[in-house]
């Protein structure tokens, strides 16, 4: 388990290697360590953490989105890194506004970890975060022609009719 000092050391080495403004904040809570990084440099930070010789976080355990509505910037993408050598986890979080997320300021990490493919598609599907450079960014769980991003906090729960929308344009409201 990375302690608060260890987290600061990691943050310092990231700042030295990747750039001063990359790590915005360090969060150590409930025994878990998280780096808050700028979206533009997220990929560089993750690449550094993966390949750095002393403490490589070689395994991307999870990538998921989150909506912190009403706080700003609203959206966030979390990367859960795992070091099989150190047996430690490190969270990397990057927060971005809805506009920045839809404009594609966040670069993809599919070239660093192949596992990010499904998980970035899922994040795009549910939160509308457009990953720059992802080869095949499309909806994964929701239908191709679905409108909106259902995991956002301002997307209502319920009240939505079940649609198989491929014939909706020919026979509107056929389900009634």
């Amino acid at each position, binding site marked *: 388990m990375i302690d608060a000092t260890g987290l600061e050391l990691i943050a310092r080495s990231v700042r030295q290697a990747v750039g001063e403004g990359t790590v915005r904040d360090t969060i150590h809570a409930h*025994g878990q360590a998280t780096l808050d990084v700028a979206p533009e440099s997220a990929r560089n930070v993750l690449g550094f953490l993966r390949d750095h010789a002393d403490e490589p976080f070689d395994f991307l355990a999870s990538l*998921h989105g*989150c909506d912190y509505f009403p706080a700003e910037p609203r959206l966030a993408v979390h990367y859960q890194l795992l070091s099989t050598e150190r047996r430690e986890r490190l969270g990397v979080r990057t927060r971005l506004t809805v506009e920045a997320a839809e404009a594609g300021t966040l670069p993809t990490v599919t070239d660093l970890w192949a596992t990010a493919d499904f998980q970035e598609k899922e994040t795009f599907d549910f939160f509308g975060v457009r990953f720059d450079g992802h080869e095949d960014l499309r909806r*994964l769980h929701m239908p191709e022609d679905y409108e909106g991003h259902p995991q956002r906090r301002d997307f209502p729960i319920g009240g939505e009719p079940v649609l198989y929308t491929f014939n909706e344009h020919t026979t509107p409201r056929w389900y009634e």
Partner: protein
Amino acid sequence: MPYREREESVTLERMEAPLAGTEVEPDAELFTVNMGPHHPATHGVLRLLCTLEGEVVRDVVPLIGYVHTGIEKSCEDQQYWKAITFVERMDYLAYYFNAYAYCSAVERLLDEEVPRRAQYLRVVHMELNRIASHLFWLGTSALDLGAITMLWWALRDRDTILDLFEMSGGQRLHPRYFQVGGVMEDLPPGWAAKCLDFTKNMVARIDQYEALLNENQIFIERLRDVGIVPQERLRSLGVSGPLMRATGDPWDLRKTMPYSSYEDFDFKIPVGTIGDHYDRYRVRIAEMRESLKIIEQAVEGMPEGPFITPNRKVALPPRHELATSMEALIHHFKLVTEGFRVPPGEVYEAIESPRGELGCFVVADGSSKPARVHMRDPSFVNLQCLPDMARDELIADLIAGIAMLDPILGGIDR
């Protein structure tokens, strides 16, 4: 080009060549076949777009989302203790693991200690669930490979486990036995004896399974040296659990990052050698034997004490207190109507489910409902290695690949 000319330009030379007795085969044509979403061998509503060349699979694209029910979204509208019911239904063969991952994430947010007895009870139930899940995998996989006997045998023993679940939690599936802070009830009288009886018999049963399958020519030929994916590729794909251990990597969160008192038990991590389907089969069978050991140790060494945290702000007071104590009544009323509030924060809690790393990410905003619940489901991540497993092998091996992957579509789609 006029029609006649175009017709003349077509040459049948290549097609006719093999008929003339030469060794040259015509270039086979690629065609795309849709498999699923309703297909018995896909273990759920999984749809695969297969590009075939004859009977050889050249590419597979898994298409998912057919059982997406928005559980993660629904959880945001439930109080913390009510969301347990929802998360249990994600990976519907490993419900205790879902409940544990979620409950322990909430406990971490609350900084709530879980009594030792509750930790042991959780371990017993999770390991029983692991065996039940592996038994279901064994039965259905062997069925896919043509051995129908295994389905009846495996489900017969799985039924005994479900009987135990019914005794302790009141339900055979999705019992909601784990609570935030502990478990729902203590073990009923006679449960421990019945459980130990099961573990004793189960060893002989696994011997029977192995006698049936290990020397079965068809079974071995279908599995051996099939579906090998290099370890580095699997790691990049984020694959964990028995699939990863089959390649010889002894990574198991129960050992490497122990939780819920797993460090108290003596058990081994089975690993494979080359990572083919046969290794995957042997690793899971060996895991069942190790789980039996853990259950025996946990039942016999069960510590005395409370089975749920005495913190009345989180756990319901015992029933008998309600008749005599005003405070208990108030706590009960507050917990049932409003639920407990969780201070703001976010945690990612990962455990070893039968299919790999099951992570639960919970964000609390200070209210009595979670702001975000996300499950990193191992089936969802592991599914990405199916194309690597099936490429350039026969379509019959694709079926074996799906069976050995052990995907649960409820967990993949959530």
